[in-house]
């Protein structure tokens, strides 16, 4: 049935300009079902301990099997404790799923990145770090920030439990084709301004549904100037634009970053693969359903003031008032302003904080920890602030230790943890107390996400360290300039 359709598609492509998304989608299109859904092949699947035991149990109940255990990976990240010396039972309420995940992964012959595995970490950090996800490949991950790995020129989709059963048993996803958006990042970033600031600004401009239903391709001179690890941050937070997925054309920086990683083809196979990957870019005449242009020149470090990532301002700006709410968002803004408990019209700098959190799939790669440590320069965390660093993976942790970053953090008064999601979503029991205010490198500042009545301010690692040292929200550029 597909044979005919497939030849037509290939014929058509010779005459048609395609986007990067189209190229990977078409390459992985297996068939179109009678209900109109496209069956898209998933080259790699990853699931975490929150889903794994349930999904494996459902597959067993139905007498089905995991089709490709060799392409399937499980990680313990969401609910594991991260304080040094952790064990399976450190958190009593997650011990059951951790143990069930171990047992079910073994039953199905699937590679598990278990609690004490040297490669354990947050799924979206370890997948690229191991070279599990490749340019031009597809990736399904049981978490909404799957698009992180799109920075390598891969096509990734988050999925729920029911979709996971489908993926594990058929190795495909049954998808409706998303619309395409190109998000062009123009201009040049100032020093200390990072990918995190860019994406917070973009979300502030476009709103939390600004890319709803779209596959977003990030492009433009500001994008290519951002190192690969920063591009992960950008793709990661496209989820907060409502995007279905995000990706960027792989360039030499990506190929260099990938070369030699454990799961990446080596030797002659690398050369063959690389030759193909060089074609992974949108054709010049390719048309996108939506085109957005953002100028990054002169952008300040950003910080969120409210309860969704679009409620973002430059660090020198004042907390807005209700009149500034985008049309139709007045009620949400009223609620956010009340929850934030910050006076409208007053600068956000000077707001006292009680915690600083550096971690998550957004901002806990080696370069993030380096940028954070660089701000410390012998200074100490302010009294009354609890500051924690949770590396994105155990590999990142070892690399950071090899550079002595752990010593820098510890000397300044930061706790230095093992890897996991930790306080990003409070899943590992890491939650703040009611009324606390956190500067956090994570991706969601939703009401109650880091604890009941806890206010979360999202920012870059450098901004979080600056706030930890000052005990209040400050402009990291002043701190850096003051020392220079």
């Amino acid at each position, binding site marked *: 049935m597909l044979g005919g359709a497939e030849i037509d598609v290939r014929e058509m492509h010779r005459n048609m300009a395609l986007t990067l998304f189209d190229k990977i989608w078409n390459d992985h299109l*297996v*068939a179109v079902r*009678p*209900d109109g859904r496209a069956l898209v092949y998933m080259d790699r699947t990853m699931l975490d301990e929150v889903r794994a035991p349930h999904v494996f149990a459902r597959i067993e109940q139905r007498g089905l099997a995991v089709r490709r255990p*060799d392409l399937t990976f499980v990680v313990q990240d969401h609910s594991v404790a991260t304080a040094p010396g952790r064990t399976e039972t450190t958190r009593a309420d997650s011990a059951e799923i951790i143990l*069930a995940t171990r047992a079910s992964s073994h039953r199905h012959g699937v590679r598990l990145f278990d609690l004490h595995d040297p490669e354990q970490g947050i799924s979206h950090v370890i997948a690229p770090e191991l070279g599990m996800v490749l340019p031009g490949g597809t990736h399904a991950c049981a978490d909404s920030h799957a698009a992180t790995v799109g920075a390598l020129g891969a096509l990734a989709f988050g999925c729920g439990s*029911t979709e996971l059963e489908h993926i594990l048993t058929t190795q495909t996803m049954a998808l409706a084709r998303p619309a395409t958006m190109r998000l062009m990042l123009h201009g040049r970033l100032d020093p200390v301004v990072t990918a995190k600031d860019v994406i917070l600004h973009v979300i502030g401009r476009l709103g939390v549904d600004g890319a709803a239903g779209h596959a977003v391709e990030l492009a433009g001179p500001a994008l290519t100037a951002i190192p690969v690890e920063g591009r992960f941050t950008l793709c990661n937070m496209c989820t907060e634009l409502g995007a279905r997925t995000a990706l960027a054309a792989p360039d030499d920086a990506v190929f260099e970053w990938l070369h030699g990683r*454990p799961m990446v083809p080596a030797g002659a196979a690398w050369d063959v693969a690389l030759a193909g990957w060089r074609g992974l870019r949108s054709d010049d005449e390719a048309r996108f359903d939506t085109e957005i242009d953002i100028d990054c020149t002169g952008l300040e470090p950003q910080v969120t003031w409210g309860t969704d990532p679009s409620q973002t301002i430059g660090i020198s700006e004042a907390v807005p008032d209700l009149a500034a709410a985008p049309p139709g968002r007045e009620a949400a803004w009223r609620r956010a302003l009340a929850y934030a408990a910050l006076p409208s019209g007053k600068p956000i700098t000077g707001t006292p904080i009680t915690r600083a959190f550096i971690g998550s799939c957004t901002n806990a790669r080696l370069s993030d920890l380096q940028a954070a440590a660089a701000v410390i320069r012998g200074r100490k965390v302010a009294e009354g602030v609890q500051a924690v660093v949770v590396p994105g993976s155990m590999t990142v942790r070892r690399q950071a230790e090899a550079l002595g970053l752990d010593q820098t953090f510890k000397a300044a008064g930061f706790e230095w943890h093992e890897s996991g999601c930790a306080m990003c979503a409070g899943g590992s029991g890491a939650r703040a107390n009611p009324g606390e205010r956190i500067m956090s490198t994570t991706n969601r500042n939703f009401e109650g996400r880091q604890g009941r009545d806890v206010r979360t301010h999202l920012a870059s690692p450098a901004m979080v360290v600056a706030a930890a040292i000052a005990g209040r929200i400050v402009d990291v550029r002043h701190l850096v300039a003051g020392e220079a």
Partner: protein
Amino acid sequence: MLPFTTLTGIAIPLLIDDINTDQITPAQARRSLHPDYHAAWFSRWRLDEAGNEIADCVLNAPQYRGAPILVTGRNFGCGSAREGAAWAMVARGIRCIVARSFSDFYRANCVQNGILPVTLDQVDMAALERAVTEASGTHPVTVDLEGQAVISPDGERFSFTMDPAERMMLLEGLDDIGLTMKHMSDITGWEQRTAEEQPWLQAIPKV
């Protein structure tokens, strides 16, 4: 999954609008590793705090025990998209829900789990509600998916429409996975071709 062709059985009149998934299966049912969906089904309505059945709850009425059809109100299955709310219906043996309308998610979850979601036009729906209430479990309802009709306890016949792909899935007993499994040779073919053209996508070095 059981194919759905024709079903004759008692229909429970649960004539309430906006029944949400939390009412169908409370969130606690999801937390356990081995949730008991049979027990969770409408547990907050059926059971008091001590876990005893509430006698005047229609869902506990003797004539409706084991009834395979539910007749209900507007926006059925609203709230969160949790699929457990469909699994609880399966656990209770409900095979068909006739509602004034469904939430989109719940409707899709029904089809995925072999439950036939039916909506009738307003006048027919009102007549069916009346007939089911009056019959009070003494006369059955027949639902014929092939003929796309509901025959009420008093013998009146109401036709309904259905998306052709959903109808095919229910008639053949295919869920989402079953529908895809029909393309297994396409999937295998894709894997073989890719193993030759882009071998690194099909084989991963062990780490």
